[in-house]
Every structure is written in structure tokens, then in C-alpha cells.
């Protein structure tokens, strides 16, 4: 199946950091000690028991001018490429040229491959003015480079990320949802779940990576996402202290602003986290009933797949 992801970007742009933090649970402060990636590395990703794909990380020194490299086979299976650009490493000429080359090379091997560009290291402490200036600069440089090479028909999606907040998880999730054929169906299921339980927002998470596989159609607030993804840490840590992860795991966190976070294990590694007003949590058994409905619906969707 052609569902893999390839990652490109100059050396030190932050590719390995993201992969290790998300999939290998490297602690963020340890990313400072990472060695440069010198050859292509592949990571096999399993999300729950139904989602499997590979991520190929190409070294920042990878020669894109070589016409017959051994890594061609990997590129051919990719339906997505993520290009990581370090927003703190001005000027961007080299990064932008390398992006253009990467797109050319990959598109040649996998013509339908989508291009996603992570404008990375946009850390939370950077001022908004400076942030906007950087984003505009980078996007302009990229579009100039593409048109110079008559490539402006190519669509590049931009994502602003930093490893110091939740943006890397949010955008990595969004990119991965592009290769999940059923995110839409799950969304419909979540919408009806929310409606029956008077829930405001729900995310379906894979808990080890903290990536979300789907969410309802309501507006996305990044603070909601942040709370939900951090709740996974609380849940996993407390559970590992007192027992072990099982299918009955659940949790609730009540906040002073009148909202309540509800965590329900759906099945192995997959959990549903919802936010609602606590006054709407009148009948817990209703929630129980609906979560079971949701489980069944989800099982159907995975079966069709």
C-alpha cells in the first residue's frame, strides 16, 4: 500500500526530534543531545491495531541530484512528504532550494504525493510580529522558488510548528489524517456522539503517540487540544503507577471554568477524550451507553476498511 511518509529538510531543522518525541517518547529536553542523521532512517508506525505505515527520514545531506539512488523504492511508496524548515535559520535560500529539489525528486517517483511544509521552531516565546514576518518571508521565498522553476501549480500546505508547545502534535496529526481513509466517517460518528451527550468537542487519540486520528466537525481550539493531549499523560502516568492499561480505563478532570474533560478507553491504544460543560453531565449511564454505540460504530468502520 502506498501510505508512507517521507521527511526532508536541511540538517538540524528538527526532523529527528519530532519523530523521536512522538514515536519513541524521547523527552523534549533530550532533543538537544541528538546526533545528526547521516543516512535515511525508517520508522514503522502502528497506531492502534488498524493503522500501519512507515516514515522515511532523509538525512539533511541527502544528495537529491543523484538520479538512481537506492532510496527510490522508499519514495515510491510515499503518499505524503513533510518538508521541515528551520524558521530560526535565516536566510532561507538553501532550505528553499532543497525543498524545491525534494518536491521534484519525490513527485517524479510518486506523482500524487502531497507536499506539506512544516515551518518549524516557531517557539511560543517568539513575538507575534516577528512570527508573522518570518512566516510571510518563508512562504514568499518558497513561492518565488517554485515559480522560478515553473512549479507553481504544485500545492504546498503550510504548518507552523514548535516542539515546545502542542503545535507539532496538532499538525503531525493533521498530516497523518490525510492518509487515513476513514477520518471523515469517524468525524460523522463523533458528531452524533457529541450530540447525544451534549459534548462540545471530542478527539479520538492514539495514546502512545498522542496523535489524534479524528475529531468532530466543531471548531478546533488549540487550547482544547492541548488539554486533551495532556490529559493522556495524566491518565497513562497514574495508571502505570497503580495498575496497568486495560480496556476499562477512564478518567475525568473537572476544571474551575465549569468544564469537564472525559477520557474513555475505546480499545487498545485508542481513546476518546471529550470536553463538556459539567452541568450537562447529568446521567453518567447515558455517556456509558453512547460510548458503547461509538465503539461499535468504530469497529464497523475499521472492518469496512
Amino acid at each position: 500500500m502506498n501510505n508512507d511518509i517521507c521527511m526532508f529538510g536541511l540538517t538540524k531543522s528538527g526532523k529527528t526530534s519530532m519523530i523521536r518525541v512522538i514515536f519513541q517518547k524521547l523527552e523534549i529536553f533530550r532533543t538537544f543531545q541528538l546526533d545528526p542523521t547521516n543516512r535515511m532512517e525508517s520508522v514503522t508506525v502502528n497506531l492502534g491495531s488498524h493503522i500501519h505505515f512507515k516514515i522515511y527520514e532523509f538525512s539533511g545531506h541527502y544528495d537529491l541530484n543523484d538520479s538512481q539512488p537506492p532510496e527510490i523504492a522508499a519514495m515510491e511508496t510515499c503518499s505524503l512528504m513533510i518538508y521541515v524548515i528551520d524558521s530560526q535559520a535565516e536566510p532561507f535560500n538553501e532550505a528553499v532550494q532543497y525543498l524545491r529539489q525534494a518536491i521534484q525528486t519525490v513527485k517524479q517517483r510518486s506523482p500524487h504525493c502531497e507536499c506539506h511544509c512544516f515551518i518549524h521552531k516557531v517557539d511560543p516565546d517568539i513575538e507575534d510580529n516577528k512570527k508573522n514576518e518570518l512566516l510571510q518571508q518563508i512562504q514568499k521565498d518558497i513561492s518565488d522558488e517554485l515559480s522560478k522553476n515553473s512549479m507553481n501549480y504544485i500545492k504546498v500546505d503550510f504548518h507552523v510548528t514548535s516542539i515546545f508547545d502542542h503545535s507539532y502534535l496538532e499538525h503531525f496529526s493533521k498530516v497523518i489524517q490525510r492518509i487515513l481513509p476513514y477520518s471523515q466517517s469517524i468525524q460523522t460518528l463523533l458528531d452524533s456522539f457529541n450530540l447525544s451527550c451534549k459534548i462540545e468537542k471530542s478527539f479520538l487519540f492514539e495514546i502512545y503517540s498522542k496523535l489524534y486520528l479524528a475529531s468532530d466537525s466543531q471548531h478546533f481550539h488549540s487550547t482544547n487540544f492541548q488539554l486533551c493531549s495532556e490529559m493522556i499523560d495524566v491518565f497513562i502516568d497514574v495508571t502505570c503507577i497503580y495498575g496497568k492499561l486495560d480496556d476499562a480505563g477512564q478518567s475525568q478532570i473537572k476544571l474551575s471554568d465549569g468544564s469537564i474533560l472525559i477520557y474513555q478507553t475505546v480499545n487498545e491504544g485508542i481513546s476518546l477524550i471529550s470536553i463538556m460543560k459539567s452541568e450537562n453531565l447529568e446521567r453518567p449511564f447515558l455517556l456509558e451507553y453512547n460510548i458503547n454505540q461509538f465503539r461499535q460504530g468504530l469497529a464497523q468502520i475499521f472492518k469496512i476498511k
Partner: protein
Amino acid sequence: MSQNENKMKKMLLMGQHKVGKTSMHSIIFANTPPNQVMQIGLTVDVNQNSFKFMGNLKINLWDCGGQDKLLQEYFTTQKSTIFSNVEVLIYVFDVDKEGDLFIKELNDFKTTVTSLSECSPGAIVFVLIHKFDKIKESERKIVFERKYKEIIQRADGLNIEIKDVFSTSIWDETLYKAWSQIVQNLIPNINVIKESLKAFCQTCSCEEVVLFEKSTFLIIDFQETTEKKDIQKYERLSNIIKQFKLTCMKTQANIQAITVKSEKFTVYIDEFTENTFIMLAYTDPSIYPAAISHNVHHAQKLFESIQGSDTDKLKYLIQRKP
């Protein structure tokens, strides 16, 4: 309430430049996320911060910038200002410093504790060997023991007590362990609190009860009915909950209650008294959450009175329990 219980306690935080003093107290007392401490500037003088803790404990924390020039001033011209009326000294070493740099740290430490014993005899000292995340896990024990011996020696024969030496890092729960023990030594009525918590734990038939301070999530005390050996457990909980609290604060909200359940256990964390959170853990599936909440509610009043220092009444209440 005795005079002594209500006065400010002066706490010195000392150690060389860049060892992580400001980082630590910003995380513990000022809710700074650990990944933001890289932006902390150097402390160019003595920074005084006051904290109220558990209602009636007031800490006046002196964060003494650690550049050499400053240290020399502390030991000479400013000696009496710095070292008088101190109740607690927290001295921070950088675990990464070896050889001459470690000797230099030890010498400064010795001068510090000597000055302290002259100006504030009877003060207690905690030593933190910090940035332990930099040492490989397999070597931590050896490094700690080696440095511990050297450090302890320097305070030999002085009229001060080195209460404890901790290895710490802002990146894990060791930070909470050290600071929890430091504050536990300062809380007035800590023994009454311990006894009451023990009685409460028995009444509730919970396996574990932990009392956390509300703003810092430091551990005030814990009681368990069955002795377990996992000593870092509660510190890990402090760390986790504190992290979550920081995220909540971005939405201007605060944690009110947390429950985590699975087939085998229930953990219940709730606001307790004005200054505390309580955590109960139990594995007995026949215990009703409603019963727990009832017990907690009942105990709240009892504990509020400890913090009001109504000690005698409280002792009476505890003794009446079966």
C-alpha cells in the same frame, strides 16, 4: 497560635552561578514550565521572594546570584545581612562539575556553612546536587555517593545540621521530592497533620491518602495502609499534576478534581482545604465513590481547623477515633 509559627521564615538559596537556583524556585513556586527556564536571566544580586504556604507558613526566599564577585561580597561586607536570622539554607551543586570546579564548589560551600554557623547557629541545611539528568542512569548512584561524602565532610564540626542531601533535576520528579521534604520540615503542626491523615486513611479504608499543597503540588504528607516500596510514586504524581495544572492555567482555569479508574483501581484527587488537595487511592471495587466523597467532605472541616491551628481541639478529635 504561638509567635513562632506565624513569622516569616528566612530561606537562603545559594550555589554557584548557573547551577539552576532560579530555575528551580520558579518552577516550584511561580508555576514556570520547565521548558521555559532557559529564558531565565542570571540573577545579578539577591532576589527576595515571599511565599505563603499552607496558609500560616510564610517563606522569605533569598535567591542569591552566584557569580564569584557576588559570592565574595556575601562572605565579607554583606555577611551579617545575608547570614543572620536564617532558618534554612538550600545549597545547590552542579553535578556536572568535576575536578577543580568541584573543589571550588566545595570551598564555597564550606565558607557558606561556616558563615551560617556563626551568624545563625542552629539553622538547618539541605544540599541539592542538581542537573542529575546529565548523568547516565547507571552511574547516578555512584556519583551521588562520591559527591555526598565530600560535601558532608565540609560541614564537620560546625554548629549546623545538614538535614539531607538530594539529587535533583528540573526534568523529573526528583525536584518535587527534594522540595517536598524541605517544606515539610518547615510546616508548623506537621505532626498533627500526619496523625489526622493517618486516622482519616483508616476511616476511609483507602490504601493510600496523600495531601498536596494546592499551589505548588508539593507533598505535605502521605499515609498508606499497606507498606509499599515505590518511594518516588507521590513525587511523580506531584510532577504530573503540576504539568497539567500549567496547561490549565493557559486557559485561565484550574484543576478542581481528577479521577482515574481502571478495572483494578480508583484514584481520586479533589480540592480539600483552602490550601490543599487530597488524593485517595483504593483497589477495593466495593467502595462507592459517593461514600468517599462523603468522607472527604467530613474530614475537610477537621483539617481546616488544623490550619487554623486549633490544635488542642483537634488532638481531642483524633484521640476519640477508634
